[in-house]
């Protein structure tokens, strides 16, 4: 038995024993599950995905109808999850960066208010906010006849937010094409300006031009495209608004809760990132005679962003995962339509749970792969 004292042998034996226990446990669970399923008469396999679903989804962009398959239902859920996540991510980022910067303001009142916001949203459960928006705020909104109008084109009432839809997309497509062209031109210009500065030291106002090509001109293009398009504007007929597109209250509540909640966490990430840039760096830049705009652009942002991006990405990921809470107010996202409705109608819990988890895991994996790639690429070179 002397070989048992060898550390390597012992390590292998321990691990083998662990593996055996794990496999045995797994086998035990699988056997129980299959026995229980046979007894309960539950079918297995993935054929159910191609059956007619017969489930109504009140809010969908995919043109789904109850006579479609369960696979189409799942796709509708995925699209709804991505829709609410994408819109919330944009708004949460905007609020989060604003609040995070305001928290660092020299103005005491401004920074305190930003701090109050962050402490308020971070210490209350997200589900609370979702229920609060849905049952507290949106249920208290006026009836369609007394809607809150926004510039006469969008109307908010307790049945949701009615927004206009374009009759055809040609004008907007052209505008989008123009914007892509402008961004590409700006990118080429920035490359050229940097090369010239490296060569001759001559400066070019890249950022100023950038505000025009990537800010003002795209807005103009969109405005022109929108003006050239006919719009289906919602109008009040009888007791409800007709025409346009109705964002259901579930969407509005989930969107409002997700974006304001996540913004609190993004604000903290932004604040932490900016505070991580040492004061000495800023002092040194000032000593070199850089203007404060350039200090922010050339010294603060490049050093703060690598610190901000990782927590920011994980907040985006959290937001996507948290959009599943929409199930609590019956917003038809993946969990509500698939783990909820489809599971009840088919009873195939194992398959449905596996598919749902696989979808979220794929999303998470994709985001974390991107994050690793980004970190490797943008790691600060320190000497």
């Amino acid at each position, binding site marked *: 038995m002397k070989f048992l004292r060898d550390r390597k042998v012992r390590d292998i034996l*321990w691990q083998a024993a662990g593996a055996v226990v794990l496999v045995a446990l797994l086998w035990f669970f699988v056997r129980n599950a299959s026995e229980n399923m046979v007894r309960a008469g539950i079918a297995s396999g993935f054929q159910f995905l191609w059956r007619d679903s017969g489930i109504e989804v009140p809010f969908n962009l995919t043109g789904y109808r109850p006579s479609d398959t369960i696979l189409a239902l799942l796709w509708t859920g995925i699209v709804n999850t991505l829709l609410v996540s994408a819109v919330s991510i944009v708004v949460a980022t905007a609020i989060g960066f604003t609040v995070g910067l305001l928290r660092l303001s020299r103005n005491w009142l401004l920074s305190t208010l930003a701090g109050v916001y962050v402490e308020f949203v971070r210490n209350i459960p997200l589900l609370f906010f979702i229920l609060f928006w849905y049952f507290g705020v949106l249920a208290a909104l006026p009836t369609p006849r007394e809607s809150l109008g926004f510039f006469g084109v969008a109307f908010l009432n307790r049945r949701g937010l009615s927004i206009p839809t374009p009759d055809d997309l040609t004008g907007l497509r052209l505008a989008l094409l123009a914007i892509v062209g402008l961004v590409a031109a700006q990118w080429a210009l920035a490359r050229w300006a940097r090369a010239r500065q490296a060569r001759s030291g001559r400066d070019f106002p890249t950022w100023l031009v950038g505000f025009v090509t990537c800010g003002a001109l795209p807005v103009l293009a969109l405005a022109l495209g929108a003006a050239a398009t006919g719009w289906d504007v919602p109008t009040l007929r009888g007791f409800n608004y007709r025409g346009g597109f109705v964002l259901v209250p579930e969407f509005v509540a989930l969107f409002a809760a997700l974006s304001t909640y996540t913004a609190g966490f993004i604000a903290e990430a932004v604040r932490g990132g900016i505070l991580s840039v040492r004061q000495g760096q800023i002092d040194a830049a000032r000593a070199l005679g850089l203007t404060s705009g350039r200090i922010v652009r050339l010294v603060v942002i490049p050093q703060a962003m690598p610190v901000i991006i990782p927590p920011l990405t994980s907040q985006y990921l959290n937001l996507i995962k948290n959009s599943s809470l929409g199930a609590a107010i019956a917003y038809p996202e993946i969990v509500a339509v698939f783990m909820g409705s489809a599971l009840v109608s088919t009873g195939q819990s194992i398959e449905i749970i596996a598919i749902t988890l696989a979808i979220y895991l794929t999303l998470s994996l994709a985001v974390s792969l991107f994050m690793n790639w980004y970190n490797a690429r943008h790691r600060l070179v320190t000497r």
Partner: protein
Amino acid sequence: MTAIAWLRQRLFATPLDAAITLVCAYIVWRISVPLVHWLLLDATWHGTSRDDCKGSGACWVFVRVRFSQFMYGQYPVPERWRVDIVGALWVLVTAALSWPALPHRRSATFAAVLVLPIVAIVLLHGGWGTGLRLVETREWGGLMLTLFLTIYAGLIAIPLGILLALGRRSCLPLVRFASVVFIEFWRGVPIITVIFLASLLLPLIMPTGFDVDRLARAVIGLAFVIAAYMAEAVRGGLQALPEGQIEAAQALGLGYWRIQRMIVLPQALRIALPAMTNEVIALFKNTTLVLIVSIFDLLGIAQAALADPAWVGMNMEAYVFAGTIYWLSCFALSQWSRRRERRLQHAHGR
């Protein structure tokens, strides 16, 4: 710095600053005055029914009448003293254990963590030959259930998280692999799906006739997810520890578990404590998700109370009450963690 100098520097440094300050002050004024009126000045505090609420402010009568339900859920009224005793036990034991001069503090903590949860469950549940009336977990609810979920999921998640963090840094490839898969899997999926999964799959994978309690399923689901997050928090502490500590301990001839217990964990956990506290706060907030499998914690009870036809339109009162409890608890925990962190930094002369 005098008050006027402070005002000039922090509020009225430039004309733009002054303008911002005035606009902000105006907005705060416009929001807070009606809020204070609704919350306190115009609110109704005394009474027994909805008809007593005549003012334009909040109707706190609703919360007063429902208060015990918000605390205990549907727990039978004559048995509620048991919940009070369990709560008092937890508070007393925690207070005694946080007294630094307590003799044998470490072993006492260990014993308390082992014994107290079992005593608490027996007292709350009753039956099992104790002579106490059996109270099914489906009757539990309210704040008591929120605390129950937090404490029991936390008691599983913290040790499991520490083991997973050690496993992730282990030199045994199989252990490392299993830990990484466990951690990344549970971190990659939404908690709500895990609670679903636990409540649907646990009864399915157990032998027939062996029933896992509904509440226990939720605790297990929550605990697994939080353990994965906890493991990452602990890993941060482990990584911050200089390699020399472990090498020195190995040179002294200590074995793996002794090194972890005596050298690594005491230091790593101290570093990881703020991150771990954040996970406990996240757990406290995430207990609300059990609403999805019809378990009524504080938020669930508040939500369910809105359906009472005798109290229509009390949405805001219920939400403000529940929200305040969540906010105060989480804020107090995070402040405690921050204070402790500052004191430790101070003690280390940094």
